[in-house]
C-alpha cells in the first residue's frame, strides 16, 4: 500500500491539484477541451468500462466455438459482432491459454493495456516491479499473485511494445458444464485476462 498518492504529504497533493486545475482551465479557455466531455470520460471509466467487458467476451468464447475461432483470428472483428459489448479499436489480439502454454501480458516500456476490454490498468500493472520482472521471472511474479503452474508449462510473456493489445483467453475451469454465459462471466477475473491469475473455481468463495 505504499507509493500511492494518498500516502503523499498534503502540501504535495495540493500542489498537484492546483497544477491540474490550472492546466484544465487554460486548455478549456483556449477552446481545446470541453469540460462536459471531460466529465463524461471520467464517468465512463468509473461506471462502464471495466473487466466485465472482457469477461463477457471470454464467457462467450467458452460457450460458442465458432465465436472463439473468430476471436482468435481477429478479436476486433469478433467483438464488433457482440451488441452488448462496446466496440473496440483495431489491433486487439486474443491469446489462448492451453494445458501446454500459459500467457502473460505486460508493457515494459509504459502501460499499454486493453483498456476497452479491461478498463483502467491497476497500479501494479503500471508499477516498476511488474514491468521489470514479468519478462525475466514470470513464475516469480505469478508467485506474488499466489499462482503456481506445473513446472513443464510453457510461460509465454507478451510485451506490448506496439499498438497491438492482448487479451488472455483463460482455460474454462472444470465443473462448469451447462453454465450460462452470465454465470461463466462471473468467474472470469481481470487478472485471469492479463495472465497473472486464473478464473475462480466453481464453488470457491470470492
Amino acid at each position, binding site marked *: *500500500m505504499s507509493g*500511492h*498518492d*494518498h500516502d503523499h504529504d498534503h502540501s504535495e497533493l495540493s500542489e*498537484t*491539484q*492546483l*497544477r*491540474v*486545475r490550472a*492546466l*484544465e*482551465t*487554460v*486548455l478549456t*479557455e*483556449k477552446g*481545446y*477541451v*470541453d469540460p*462536459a*466531455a471531460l*466529465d*463524461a*470520460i*471520467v464517468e*465512463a*471509466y*468509473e461506471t462502464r468500462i471495466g473487466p466485465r467487458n472482457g469477461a463477457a467476451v471470454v464467457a462467450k468464447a467458452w460457450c460458442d466455438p465458432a465465436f472463439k475461432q473468430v476471436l482468435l483470428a481477429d478479436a476486433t472483428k469478433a467483438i464488433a459482432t457482440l451488441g452488448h459489448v*462496446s466496440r*473496440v*479499436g*483495431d*489491433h486487439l489480439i486474443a491469446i489462448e491459454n492451453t494445458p501446454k502454454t500459459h500467457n502473460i501480458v*505486460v508493457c*515494459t*516500456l*509504459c502501460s499499454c493495456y486493453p*483498456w*476497452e476490454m479491461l478498463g483502467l490498468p*491497476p*497500479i501494479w500493472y*503500471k508499477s*516498476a516491479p*511488474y*514491468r*521489470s520482472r514479468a*519478462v*525475466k521471472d*514470470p513464475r516469480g511474479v505469478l508467485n*506474488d499473485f499466489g499462482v503456481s503452474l506445473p513446472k513443464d508449462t510453457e510461460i*509465454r*510473456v*507478451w*510485451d506490448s*511494445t*506496439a499498438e*497491438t*493489445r492482448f487479451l488472455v483467453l483463460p482455460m474454462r475451469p472444470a465443473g462448469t458444464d451447462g453454465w450460462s454465459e452470465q454465470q461463466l462471466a462471473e468467474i472470469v477475473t481481470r487478472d485471469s485476462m492479463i495472465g*497473472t491469475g486464473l478464473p475462480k473455481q466453481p464453488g470457491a468463495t470470492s
Partner: protein
Amino acid sequence: MDGIHDMGGRDGFGTVVAEPNEPPFHEPWEGSVLALQRAMGYAGAWHNDHARFARERLPPQVYLTSSYYLKWLLAMEVNVLERGLASPAELKSGHALTSGKTLKRKLTPVVVQDGLTRSSFFRQPQGPARYKIGDGVRARNIHPKTHTRLPRYARGRRGTVELCHGCHMFPDSVAINLGDNPQWLYTVVFDGRELWGPDADPTLKVSIDAFEPYLEPA
C-alpha cells in the same frame, strides 16, 4: 532513448503488490488528467508517442518517484508548451492570456465514445514486408537518443517472426515529428535463455512487437 522507462529485466524493484478493490481513480485529479489526455489526443494536439516520449524524458528520479498520473500531468505540460498550445505564463497563472490555436477537432459529450475508442494505427505500406512468419531475425543493437519501442533486453538477440500485424505508423518517427513513416509490424518471439542466459527458466518465451527497422535477418 536508453531511459529509466525501459524497465524489462531490471532487478531490485521488489515484489508485485496488488491493491484489493482498487478504485478507478485514487483522487479526482487523476480522472481529470486522464480525461485531458484523451480529449487532447482526440483533438490531434499530440500523438500517444509524443506523450510517451515526454514521460521518458522526465529525469529518472522524477520518473521513479512520481505516481502514474503525476507523470502524465508533467508530460502533458511538456507537450502543451513544446507545441505552443499555451505559454508558461498561462500555465503559471492558470488562465489563458491569448486565444488558442486551431486543432483538428474537439471532443464533445455527443462524440465522447469516439474519444474512448482507439483509432486505427494501420497505414498504407511503402513496400512489401521483408519478413514472413517463421523467419529468423535479430533485433538490431541500436541506441537512438529519441523515442523507440525496441526494449533494450531484446537488442542483439535472435528470435523468430511469429505474427505479422500489417503496416503501422512508426512511433520512432511520429515522436520526433517526422510523420507516420509506415512500417511493417511483427510479433517476434525469443527463447528465455537467449534473453537471460543459460540459467533462465527453460519454459520461458518472451515476445515483443517489433517494427521492421528494428530487425535484421538472422
